[in-house]
């Protein structure tokens, strides 16, 4: 991807980024490219290196090896003035608990890039916190602190927003508002990089995703392209037919586990790890075995891709044991 575009096309690039905490590797050669004016979803399991990457991008940490560019130019932790054009919310929002939300923003406006006082009202309005802005932060809920954190990130009207789990603690209305805000920002040509565990949220927001595991990007690209060949077919059969169905379905994806549920409300459902375009093939295999599906659903989603790539240990239903000949 980086070869196809000049560096200036990207808001952020990293090449071979390495970071260790003592002997513990956090990043092991991270290559990431975040195009300008897009929402980039940065996904990965806990401890995969997402927050470390964001900390490196805002100069809180120094890399052990590798290069970064920020807003089109090479970047090291010493180039702090570049951060005047970057807004960030890294980990949990941090504020003085004894100050009001407004005073915290006034404090932050006194740091970093010059910020006109009216901007404080604008961002408070933007995140729906104007009414409570005079209350002390220690009286805020997690969601309100999160909104204030997003307001703080937007304070300097940045070209690039780095948001670490921005939907944390937000109520559904807050999540919708966040989504609209981020969409609005990209329509203004700004770039948003969000790291998140809430995959459906990222799926709705992101144009491009990068999936990180064990400190390196294992897949990066346009969401639609990544999902093209990935997905599952879910099929429901009668519980008494499950053994025969398993025997018929397993050969379709011999290297991948076949998930089936044999009890409870989901009883009779199989999840076959094949592309949704092969739904017809699944149906045909069942029919050939004398099993008829009562429901069939082909879907490709980010969650499937994520689980497949990261080898997450939380795949949902347990894999069915190999079918024995009847």
């Amino acid at each position, binding site marked *: 991807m980086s070869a196809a575009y000049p560096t200036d096309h990207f808001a952020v690039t990293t090449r071979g980024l390495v970071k260790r905490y003592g002997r513990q590797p956090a990043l092991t050669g991270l290559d990431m490219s975040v195009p300008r004016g897009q929402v980039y979803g940065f996904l990965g399991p806990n401890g995969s290196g997402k927050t470390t990457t964001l900390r490196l991008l805002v100069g809180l940490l120094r890399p052990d090896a590798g290069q970064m560019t920020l807003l089109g130019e090479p970047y090291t932790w010493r180039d702090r003035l570049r951060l005047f054009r*970057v807004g960030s919310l890294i980990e949990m929002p*941090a504020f003085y608990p004894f100050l009001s939300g407004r005073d915290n923003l006034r404090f932050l406006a006194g740091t970093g890039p010059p910020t006109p006082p009216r901007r404080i009202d604008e961002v408070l309005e933007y995140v729906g916190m104007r009414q409570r802005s005079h209350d002390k932060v220690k009286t805020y809920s997690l969601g309100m602190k999160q909104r204030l954190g997003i307001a703080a990130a937007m304070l300097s009207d940045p070209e690039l927003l780095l948001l670490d789990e921005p939907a944390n603690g937000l109520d559904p209305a807050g999540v919708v508002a966040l989504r609209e805000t981020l969409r609005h920002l990209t329509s203004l040509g700004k770039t948003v990089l969000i790291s998140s565990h809430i995959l459906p949220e990222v799926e709705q927001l992101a144009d491009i995703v990068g999936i990180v595991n064990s400190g390196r990007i294992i897949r990066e690209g346009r969401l639609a392209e990544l999902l093209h060949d990935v997905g599952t077919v879910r099929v429901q059969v009668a519980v008494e037919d499950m053994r025969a169905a398993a025997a018929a379905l397993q050969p379709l994806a011999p290297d991948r586990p076949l998930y089936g549920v044999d009890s409870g409300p989901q009883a009779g459902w199989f999840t076959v790890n094949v592309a949704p375009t092969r739904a017809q093939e699944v149906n045909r295999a069942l029919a050939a075995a004398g099993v008829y599906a009562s429901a069939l659903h082909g879907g490709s989603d980010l969650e499937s891709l994520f689980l497949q790539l990261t080898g997450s240990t939380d795949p949902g239903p347990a894999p069915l044991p190999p079918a024995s000949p009847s």
Partner: protein
Amino acid sequence: MRLLAAELLSLRKRAATYVVLAVLLVLMALVYLLAGLTARGQPGSAGTATFAFPAAYSVIGLFVFGLGSLLSVAYAAAVAGGDWSWGIPRVVLSRGESRVNYVLAKAAAVGIALAVGVLVAYAAGIVLTYVGAAISGSSVGNPLSGNSPRRLFDSLALGFPVLLERAAIGFAVATVLRSQLAGVVVGIVLYIGEAILTGILVGLALFGRGAFSLEPFGPEWYQFLPFSIGDSVLAAANGSSGPDPSVGDVLLRPVPPEVALPGVLLYLVGCLVVSALLVRRAQITA
């Protein structure tokens, strides 16, 4: 200047700023009240001398720069350490703020808060002097006559750098430890620990000289330790030409103020440099 104004905003709205000053004022009021009651009906006693200018300025100075020193260590440590405990450096530095400026502006804001506190405490001390004198039935004299203004100036001009230096030590300790609680506790332990160590060393020195010799001695090396050296400056600030009273031994000569004051300033600058360099190089993971 924007950064300094921002830091002052946070200190102005912080309860600790007022609590520390209130503790000092309440203790001063208590002591003046008790001293006034004790000296009542005893004209010419040492107690009534406390309420007569210019000596009254020295007494105020003992409170403000003596007890105030301990409070300033705790206050500066709380301010510097609190930021780390709440994750403020993460937010401030990720906005592109200079690390060195961040530390120095915070230290300057603490210095300004302490300066205001000192002025308020001095004003309160003067009022309490009149109250104590009224209770004891003694005369305060004229606070502006003779060498009183000079004594007031000396007390402030020499005492304030000591207060700043001690605050800078608390600030640096909290910055090194990156914790509010640990900064306050360790700062106070260092302050008290050094006083105890100095007392022990004085005792050993006396013992080594064949005890009970009344010949003054010193200055000794331990009088150049960070907190002890300030005591010599305070002795000069309070108009004491005799031995250093802070170590509880009238036999120990203080370090001359022309040596002690630069020493205090050196420690002050040293603490700020250490804090700034530490934050400049810090990898911020919290």
